[in-house]
């Protein structure tokens, strides 16, 4: 059994929110996903990935901004990790 990983970045913390970013990692070696390899996301929302058989195994926590840094922007906040085993 080898793991395929899909990471979706969503527009809000809700799993049914639109996808704004995505990454794939393929433990089977069948594909070689890399930075900048596509302009269209594989799914429109996180729930769409569930419907296609991806299993969610990690979601970003909701962490309040650090005092004094409420307006700073940094990493994408709403990150969801999915897997398929094949």
């Amino acid at each position, binding site marked *: 059994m080898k793991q395929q990983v899909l*990471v979706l*970045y*969503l*527009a*809000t913390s809700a799993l049914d929110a639109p*996808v*704004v*970013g*995505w*990454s*794939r990692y393929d433990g089977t070696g069948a594909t*070689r*996903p*890399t*930075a*900048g*390899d*596509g*302009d269209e*996301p594989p799914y429109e929302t996180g729930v769409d990935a569930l419907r296609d058989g991806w299993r969610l195994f990690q979601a970003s926590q909701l962490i309040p901004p650090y005092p004094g840094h409420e*307006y*700073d*922007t*940094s*990493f*994408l*906040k*709403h990150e969801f990790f999915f897997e398929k085993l094949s």
Partner: protein
Amino acid sequence: METTLLSSAQVAGFVAAGYLRLDGIVPDELNEQAIDVLEAGIPRSPYGTPVAKAFPEGTFARRLIELPEVAGALHSLVGPDPTIDHHAVHIREPHNGHAQPLHADAIIDTRTDAFDVQLMYYPHEVTADMGGTLVVPGSHLRRVNESDTGRYQNLRGQTRLTCPAGTVMLLHHGIWHGGRRNDSDVRRYMFKIRFNPTVPQVRLWDTSDLGSPAVLEELGRRFPWYENATGRLEIHNRALMWRAMTADSSFDIDYWATRVTNRPGRAA
């Protein structure tokens, strides 16, 4: 030296997107010399060397940055007499296996009232399969350290550069970018120069259109990869950057910065 300064709307576009594209502005005569020059290598100078010393009169790099459109854009963004931080020739070999991870250059840089500009020059046409630079519009104000963003492969609205020969891009130092995998049979060349300002970056461009609606339109642009909430912070942070660049402490976009600092009767 003749220059063509940017308009306020163009500079606002840079503040919003974090870069400016000048497609095909380098004449063929220079583009045709470029590959040999880049292959031979351009001597490096110590960090912070003035342009005149780093690139003596008549050299390829000097002629490139003294093209009127390039000189005007550089003056508009970093001002007169910038210093050369460093420069480098980037080559993506045909069918090379890996893209660079998405990154911002150097180290995390939290300046809000000054910025460096990176020039990227493409001497030949870049087609879709040649691995043109991946650039994420509007990512430059995010506080990240170099390749800590490497986990992100694709973001909605990203730019996978294709361009005609002789294209120059000018980028804010914080922009997320990366050289993509070159799936073609052709070597891809890019020449990069990082400029440091030596003067305050305030109203260095042609400000005759400063009050134009096009300025606000540019500054208010949202990009497709922005999350709903953080996208609002991006607009807020651009307003603060525009305040610094115009020396106008009351400037705002949709009241974002004004509302959250309104504390009647309280000391600052």
